[in-house]
């Protein structure tokens, strides 16, 4: 069954075409005046380099590797994120370490190399979901760009510091040193 198109009967005033034109001009003029007197910050257009869009909660932007308060990385190098990644952009090399304060002397794993190829990443958030330690977050920064391909390979320290300025944290460039010899408290 077809759609019955209802024909609109125009009044004589509308059929002169002059009055509807004036009405339309009124509408456009209203928009013109409204836009003219709207301050720049309240217009629909976000003038990008000067103004930035506030991203909604749950936006998946640039990654951050989370850290403990003392600066130790939360990641335990379980490779779950690398497995979950559909773009295969995460590459991890694990290392063993022990620390009196953090691991009570037990041997634990942490990434020595944690690399994300930002050119490959599709920002799907699967790594975030797969992580058992909530060590990797996708947050609200969307300005991921560089002048060359190599700069888009984000290493462990790049990823740990991606939101350092935004959160007011200190930039860290090395793991906290183990403060005791290995296996002192073990057994």
């Amino acid at each position: 069954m077809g759609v019955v198109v209802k024909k609109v009967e125009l009044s004589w005033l509308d059929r002169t075409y002059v009055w509807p034109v004036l009405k339309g001009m009124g509408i456009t003029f209203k928009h013109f005046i409204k836009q003219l007197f709207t301050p720049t910050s309240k217009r629909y257009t976000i003038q990008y380099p000067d103004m930035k869009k506030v991203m909604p909660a749950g936006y998946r932007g640039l990654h951050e590797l989370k850290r403990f308060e003392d600066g130790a990385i939360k990641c335990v190098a379980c490779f779950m994120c690398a497995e979950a990644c559909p773009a295969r952009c995460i590459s991890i090399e694990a290392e063993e370490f022990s620390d009196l304060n953090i691991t009570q002397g037990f041997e634990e794993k942490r990434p020595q190399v944690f690399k994300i190829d930002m050119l490959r990443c599709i920002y799907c958030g699967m790594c975030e979901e797969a992580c058992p330690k909530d060590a990797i977050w996708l947050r609200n920064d969307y300005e991921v760009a560089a002048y060359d391909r190599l700069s888009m390979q984000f290493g462990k320290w790049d990823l740990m510091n991606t939101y350092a300025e935004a959160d007011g944290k200190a930039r860290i460039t090395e793991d906290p040193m183990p403060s005791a010899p290995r296996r002192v408290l073990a057994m």
Partner: protein
Amino acid sequence: MDTLASLLHTSPALAWMVVKIVIVFSAVMLLASVWTWVERRGSAMIQDRIGPNRAALFGRIRIIGLAQLLADGIKFFFKEDLEPTDVNRGLFWLAPFLAFVPAMLGFAVIPFGRDFVSGGTIYHLSVLDPGNGMGMLYPMAIGGLAVYGVLVAAWSSNNKWSILGGMRASAAMVSYEIGMSLAVVSIFMTTGGYDPAEIISAQGSLPWHWNVVPQFLGFIVFFTCMFAETNRLPFDFAEGESEIVAGFNTEYGSMKFSLLALAEYAHLMTASALVVTLFFGGWQVPFVAHPSVGLSILSFVVKLLFFAWVFVWIRWTLPRFRYDQMMRLGWKAMLPMSMVNLVVHAWLMSHGR
């Protein structure tokens, strides 16, 4: 004026002529180029956008984007002047000038201010003094020449889209010219002369004595026809992105394109000057019987800019017509309406009103 003339070793009349020409044509060209910006910025505001506001002098002084004119000019000036291989070379080069010159020339007879007497001689504020025997017939004739700019550009491009656009546009311009001319004829009739100075002085300073009130039908017809004459929306049949690319200026680039685009805006200025002169009392100031020269010029410029803005305003209000709709409107609505207008006013005059 006399001192200027003696400095230049010419007669005052000649010096005054040159000054008038320089002022009028540079003002029209400046306004035309400013209006490209007004069009973009105004359309943006109408559509709740922002428009070009980032071009800045020395990368610093933004002046609400007015530097866009300079930026556009520089850009067009330094672009490669591309010429497709199969164009008719002479006509291809001639066409932008054929479009631009008539658009500017139409302004020559328009009085843009009150006459004034200085040192025993009367100075007329129009490039061609009144009583030159051409009067308002001259801009009509020159307006007719504007078809050639579009058509020659279209023909010489050797491009089927161009020629389609050019043909459509010239058909539209020719058919709307009749209605427009008849609307003007009824003004000549009621005024009793076709000199713009006579037309303006006959209208007086009271707004309800201006031609727009007794000849509202004529005004509607004339104004509508002006849209077709200037090839602007809703009647822009020279172009049409969805159908024929950019129409007659498809093959044009760099400064030649810029000249074609400027011609459109110069034409717009001339058209609104005609509307003001014929229907809105030219330089007459409302409710001021004997305005000073400066005030009369200001009044003319304000009216001119208002109608130039109306051209922009209407463009961004109305959707474009289909070709057959426009032809029907031109022949079956505009022509009979202007004829009715003519006959009614002839009848009124014959009954002494």
